[in-house]
């Protein structure tokens, strides 16, 4: 009982932070049909900005109640600024280009932003542990759990709900679904697709930055720490289906729980279990488990 509860909780925690980051990636692809390799930059910049903000609050003896707003504001700031810059000055010029060129361009952007991190924040690691330390731990099924890490599950749930509600119950959501389904028809119906693209890209960037900002208090924020997460996010998106929000959720859960099981039972398998699942999905259903249906164009 303790074993399975532990695996489930570990898997859910890991899946939560994967979901928040890969959700942004899959939304961007679903709407804009762009595989944004620079998504890792949002994660890294979100983490650094949150680390800086938490350090500022701590150094100036400000209220600990400011930690959460600081994290959220950091994510929004990074998403809006970096998202707008990348969409407006790079991607907008490339929408009609071959997808491979776009991937290369976003990869170049990723490398540039990694170097900009070093110029802006230096090479020393940041340890913004205060929010995590503040909440302490609780005992769940005989094992201590960091309360802060558990709130990640809550955050992922809120993000999933907000995305579902936004897509299905709001006017903007319906516009987005229309563009996802068919860009040309959407243009013909008078939808300002460029505006939709900007909002979508910034929204995706905010989600990527939120993942980094929220995770920052649990880790050592240092140059290059986003690279591993970017690779995993791509695996999640491929498993779930590119452009599918339920796919991102299910993909994250599959990766999180399988990885947790491997770590507990056969640690040596942990490294490749994720990519083994990805390979199996690509063989059986190359478009992903929950890929949205593609209309046949005559």
């Amino acid at each position: 009982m303790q074993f399975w509860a532990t695996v489930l909780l570990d898997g859910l925690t890991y899946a939560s932070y994967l979901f928040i980051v890969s959700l942004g990636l899959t939304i961007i692809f679903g709407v804009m049909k762009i595989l944004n390799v620079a998504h890792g930059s949002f994660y890294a910049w979100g983490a650094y900005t949150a680390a800086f903000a938490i350090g500022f609050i701590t150094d100036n003896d400000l209220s600990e109640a400011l930690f959460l707003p600081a994290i959220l504001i950091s994510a929004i700031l990074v998403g809006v600024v970096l998202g707008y810059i990348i969409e407006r000055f790079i991607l907008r010029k490339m929408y009609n280009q071959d997808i491979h060129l776009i991937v290369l361009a976003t990869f170049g952007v990723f490398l540039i932003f990694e170097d900009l991190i070093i110029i802006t924040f230096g090479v020393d690691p940041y340890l913004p542990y205060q929010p995590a330390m503040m909440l302490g731990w609780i005992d769940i099924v005989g094992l201590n759990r960091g309360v802060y890490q558990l709130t990640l599950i809550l955050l992922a749930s809120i993000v999933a709900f907000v995305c579902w509600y936004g897509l299905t119950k709001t006017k903007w959501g319906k516009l987005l679904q229309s563009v996802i389904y068919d860009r040309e028809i959407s243009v013909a119906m008078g939808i300002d697709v460029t505006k939709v693209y900007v909002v979508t890209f910034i929204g995706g960037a905010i989600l990527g930055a939120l993942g980094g900002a929220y995770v920052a208090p649990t880790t050592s924020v240092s140059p290059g720490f986003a690279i591993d997460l970017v690779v995993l996010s791509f695996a999640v998106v491929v498993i779930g289906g590119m452009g599918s929000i339920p796919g991102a959720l299910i993909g994250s859960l599959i990766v999180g729980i399988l990885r947790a099981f491997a770590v507990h039972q056969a640690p040596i398998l942990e490294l490749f279990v994720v990519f083994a699942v990805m390979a199996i999905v690509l063989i059986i259903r190359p478009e992903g488990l929950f890929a949205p249906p593609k209309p046949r164009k005559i």
Partner: protein
Amino acid sequence: MKKKIFNKTAKLASASMIVASCLLAGSALAKDTVKVGVVSFLTGPAAGVFGVPAKQGAQIVIDAINNGTMPAPYNTQGFAGAKMNPVFSDESGGGTKQVGLFRDFVEKQKVDAMIGYISSGNCMAIGPIADELKMLTIFSTCGTPRLYEEKLRSHVFRTQANAVGDSLAAARYIVDMYPNEKNYTGINQNYAWGQDSYKFFELGMKQMSPDSKGSDKPQFPKLFVGQYGTEISALSLDKAKVVHSSFWNGDIEAFTLQAMVRGFFQKKIFVSSVGGSAVDALDKKFPDGIVMGTRGNVGLLARDNKDPLNMWFISEYKKRFNALPLGPSYQYARSILAYKFAMDKAMKKAGKFPTQDQVIAAMKNIKFKSFTETISMARGGGHQAVHSVGYGLTKYNKKGKTPGAEKVKMYGPECIYPPAGTKSEDWINAGMPGAKCK
């Protein structure tokens, strides 16, 4: 008469030419500067608490030797009289890139020597190339024992003892301090350094405490992965109380933070062979009671060592960088000391500025004074250093407001390294014959 004058003049001219050519030849060989490539992680996750302190440690000693301001026994100016012109290079990018850069240093930049390298993977890649290109190379930090145990090197030296001693000293400390703890496990990075570290820790425990038992599920997460929640759960559920780790850099800090908030260290005896950077980074927040090693009598364990050379180094480092030197700072500085020692020794023997081959011959089997002890290049055919390795329990010094350690035990090289010519694994499995431990 005319013939006599001509002959005399001709002889004088010939003699002058011979003297002039000797003088010219002598001054062509003498050097004002030596160009040395110094390689460490200057970007990426290993830069902040490893590569940059390493570079800073090297800089302190290079500048002091160049200016002749180093304390004895290194108080003569220069390296065989020449000033060192260090060319710092970034170790990031992997082995293939580093091999390319190494070739560039040797073939285009025409360096006189190469010093540095932190990653065991890079050392294993560079070692054969250094011998192929016949470039004197001094490795400062990398720990894999495979460097000399698989093949002896002609042009490569290492002034840092290998991971075997770190792991055996850790096992000795556990057996000495926690004799009733019989179960152990580990969490180590999944590459040469991590795998070797745990392997030799386990071999050591089996010999020193035959009734101890290793877990069948030690953790080997990927290098620099940063998230260890699941691994901490798995280790928490494991009945083994002793947890060995050779995590370094951002990984030890991330692990410490994530484990600390879950009360992990209250329930486990955590043995960190090279986690000193996290101690300084977290300062008073770092938990007390962690078994901490520093890969020698350096860094955290050397803070109270009164050796004049050590006190000078700490003082100069703090003055210049407003921080205390870490283990990597000592390791790189030590390599510079070894190079100076060998250069001066070679010049004394040759009577003039030495060639590279003379420096290599001089460096073989040397014993040179380092900051806290004498280092002996007594393994790997005279190319591999051995020195003592210490472990202690972390204890924050509230009075001095600095991280510190208590219950420190130092294990001499005769206790934790096999004799020359013997493979570590064979020696340990044979019961470590001839080991002299206090």
